[in-house]
């Protein structure tokens, strides 16, 4: 299972943002993370959680919690396979 702590850690390190600013409901754009920068965060998270985030899902990720939810869904679906 993906954890908020790991996501917070990756965003914090990749984007140089204080971890306490990264809450589940925080919009990525409010952290200064645009769609291109989000790709680098997702790239790191794909490695950490051993998932592949399809291109069409990227645009649906708005908040920090969206990342957590999508990764968990991907992990669950791959486990079922």
């Amino acid at each position, binding site marked *: 299972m993906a954890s908020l702590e790991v996501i917070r850690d990756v965003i914090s390190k990749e984007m*140089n943002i204080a971890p306490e600013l990264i809450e589940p409901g925080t919009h990525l754009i409010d952290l200064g993370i645009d769609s291109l920068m989000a790709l*680098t965060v997702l790239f790191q998270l794909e490695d950490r959680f051993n998932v592949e985030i399809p291109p069409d899902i990227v645009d649906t990720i708005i908040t920090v919690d969206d990342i957590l939810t999508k990764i968990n869904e991907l992990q669950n679906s791959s486990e079922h396979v």
Partner: protein
Amino acid sequence: MKRRVVITGLGAISGLGFGVDDFWQGLCSGASAIKEIVEEGPTNSVKLGAQVPEFDTADYFDVSKISFYDRFSQLALISAREAIQDAGLASGDILRDAAVIIGTGCGGKHTDEATYYQLYVKKSARVHPLTIPKGMPSAAASAVSMDLGIKGPSFSVTSACASGAHAIFQAYSMIQSGMVDLALAGGTDSPFTFGLSKSWEALRVLSPDGCRPFSSNRNGMVLGEGAGIIVLESEQHALKRGQSIYAEIVACGLSSDADHMTRPNQTSISLAIHKALAQAEVKPFQVDYINAHGTGTVLNDQVESLAIKEVFKNYAYEVPISSSKSLHGHAMGASSALEAVATIKSIADQIIPPTANFTAGDEFCDLDYVPNVARKHSINIALSNSFAFGGSNAVLAFKRYI
């Protein structure tokens, strides 16, 4: 009516250190930055180079931006920031309408080769998402534009080892014509990757034991890395804001060999020098210093010396000539820009940096190469020669601004 164009800011990063002061002191000391290279990848048979001293990227760049910056962009950014600071342009929005034109011979090779390593060696199914914007040859120009808020024209030019000179030419022309008042131009390259250094080795032009331009015992070039950026400005614009002026750029003689991909062509090189003199409206005997292309290969230095003799006749034996590549290595597309900085500084300080490692000339290289020791000299007009693979020749002419 063409406008006069002056140089008001300089930036340099190279094996000689960080900033123009380190660069110039290093050049004038005659102590070469070439030494055993620090290798990143597999054990490399290319052992010598002039690498930029180690630095912490976090000292210069926000962590969130660093993944956009290949090393060649990092060097350009550091140098560009220095140049605008030096030109008194670091605050306000005066840079908004400026141009930024950066030459590069290699582009983002670190990014490209890391990508190939992931795909071909590690068999990875994917690569970093910023591989394209980080590695593209225009990335450095874009990075400088974004970092400094420059909204005028921004692009890269590439002509191998003359890239920086062609970028400066482009900026010079744009200001001369009135298209822009202000421009940052220069070159950047970081060729110390496994693939690129092995590719240079394969061409059999690298020296195994040092860079000795014009010396009878020369046996090749040595790779270097760095970036040189200069601020060019219309004379009127510089005077209006009361900025001190290093020198005036008065010509850029361009020619192409249309001959051989790597062998220099004496006639075409002479033509570029002739064109520079004609544009600058000076006679050969009025040239006080030539910063040579001077790679240290047997053929380049021979042909360059012969071309200088063809143009300058007897005065060829009087005009001081030096190769700063002996000190900062051949930094590819950055070389001509670093050498432009050296040439401008030579005019500003009235000192000629030496050709390092010179022992004795030969039957072709029998001119005054300012061997090993810097020289005080009265310099009004100075040329900076760059002759690239592919036969692209560029000769910049700078003049003392009084």
